[in-house]
């Protein structure tokens, strides 16, 4: 299939997916399940990587800004804005594209090859809507919290570096964290991450839903899901940044 065919069948699948659920109580049940699986289960990895990244950026920023002419608070400020603008919304989503994307694609793909999806369809249920919509909506609704948690964890990581090493003083760091804060950056981060959450969950669902063949193809398609959603995320990151920040 070429790109145009993929876009065509992706659009067709989304048209089936983004419809009113047959039964709201069933949707609610699935939605809660997905919040658990895609959101709550990602908190741990979210915190760990953000802590480490926050620590690393703090050290690097300090090294780059070791010139005595530059004010000491610059490091904290740079750490904060890097986390806010790029790491927490974009890089975190790239990592989650690996975790969540492959999870979604392999789950739906397995259901496809074992005829579970046919079974749903033949009951007179819109299988795309039943399976995919809860995943997309659940992931979009948990991603802002994951991003906020990541920002805080990253800043905390930097604080740890300030506290326990002699790279930078705590006063300098905390002063920088608070210096000329732009609230819109938070909005920007959240909007961006919600777009990425849609990309991850819908692209992964698409690759899962359209698997043909056996277990091998499920594996191949979940790899494709991760690779392609990562590319789309980075492409749209550039466009969103241009659109929202300039």
């Amino acid at each position, binding site marked *: 299939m070429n790109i145009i065919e993929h876009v065509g069948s992706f659009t067709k699948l989304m048209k089936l997916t983004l419809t009113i659920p*047959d039964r709201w*109580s069933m949707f609610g049940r699935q939605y809660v399940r997905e919040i658990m699986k895609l959101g709550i289960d990602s908190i741990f990895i979210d915190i760990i990587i953000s802590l480490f990244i926050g620590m690393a950026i703090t050290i690097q920023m300090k090294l780059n800004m070791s010139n005595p002419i530059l004010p000491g608070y610059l490091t904290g400020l740079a750490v904060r804005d890097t986390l806010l603008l790029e790491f927490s919304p974009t890089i975190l989503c790239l990592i989650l594209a690996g975790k969540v994307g492959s999870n979604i694609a392999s789950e739906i793909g*397995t*259901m496809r090859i*074992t005829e579970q999806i046919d079974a749903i*369809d033949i*009951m*007179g*249920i819109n299988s795309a809507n039943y399976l995919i919509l809860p995943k997309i909506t659940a992931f979009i609704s948990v991603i802002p919290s994951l991003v906020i948690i990541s920002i805080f964890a990253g800043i905390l990581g930097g604080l740890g570096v300030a506290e326990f090493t002699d790279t930078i003083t705590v006063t300098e760091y905390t002063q920088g964290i608070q210096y000329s804060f732009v609230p819109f950056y938070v909005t920007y981060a959240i909007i961006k991450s919600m777009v990425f959450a849609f990309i991850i969950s819908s692209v992964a669902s698409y690759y899962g839903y359209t698997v043909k063949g056996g277990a091998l193809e499920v594996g191949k398609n979940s790899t494709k899901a991760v690779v392609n959603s990562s590319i789309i995320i980075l492409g749209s990151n550039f466009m969103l940044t241009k659109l929202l920040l300039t």
Partner: protein
Amino acid sequence: MIEVKNVSKSFHDGVKVLDNINTVFETGKTNLIIGQSGSGKTVLMKSTVGIHKVDEGHILYDGRDITKMNDNQIKMMHREIGMLFQGSALFDSMTVLENVMFPLDMFSDMDADAKRDRAIECLERVDLKRAIDLFPAEISGGMQKRAAIARAIVLNPKYLFCDEPNSGLDPKTSLMIDRLIQEITHEFNITTIINTHDMNSVMEIGENIVFIYKGQKGWQGNKDQVYDTGCQPLEDLIFASELYKKIKKAHFTLKD
């Protein structure tokens, strides 16, 4: 009663997988579709339920033509259909009981207890009550088939489709599944269509047999007529079966 009228179907390559099929599947009977692998049985079944759109012809469910229905009407039609898939197709993430309750959760307005009771009733019918809290991965293939039967009948379907219900089962379990399907068909007066290449099933429950050969209907009749069909490809299929070999052997042993 399901009437299949002049149905033809081809895929992208243009080869006619089904070529002008005419047949009737009768109510309250086990209707068997038999034929060699690749002859088009599954395509006929999937065309009949509307998963494949046919190129030509009509399919009437008690007079209602599924080929003329829009997607929404087909969806409503599907609620009268139960289907048993080759690999059982139970939902991995749900227990046996939850699997059987799923169609009720989706469509019925009963309260939670009534749904549970109805699901358990169906599981008792297929003799699976002790496995209700297990997951599909924890039960045997034959039990999975039975759970799938319970799920297929929980909403009292008027039509039941079974794609190779015996695949992957030993002969004794196969026989049990066949009989179970037949009993349910009679008990609830369902129009049942079974796809099979198992000759044991043919001899056991073949109340109405449709033989498909290279996309065409080669023969139609019941199990008592199947030995004397005058249809060479069907006789070849019968002669190749283990059951026939056994009968022949017994016959010669008797004569000697």
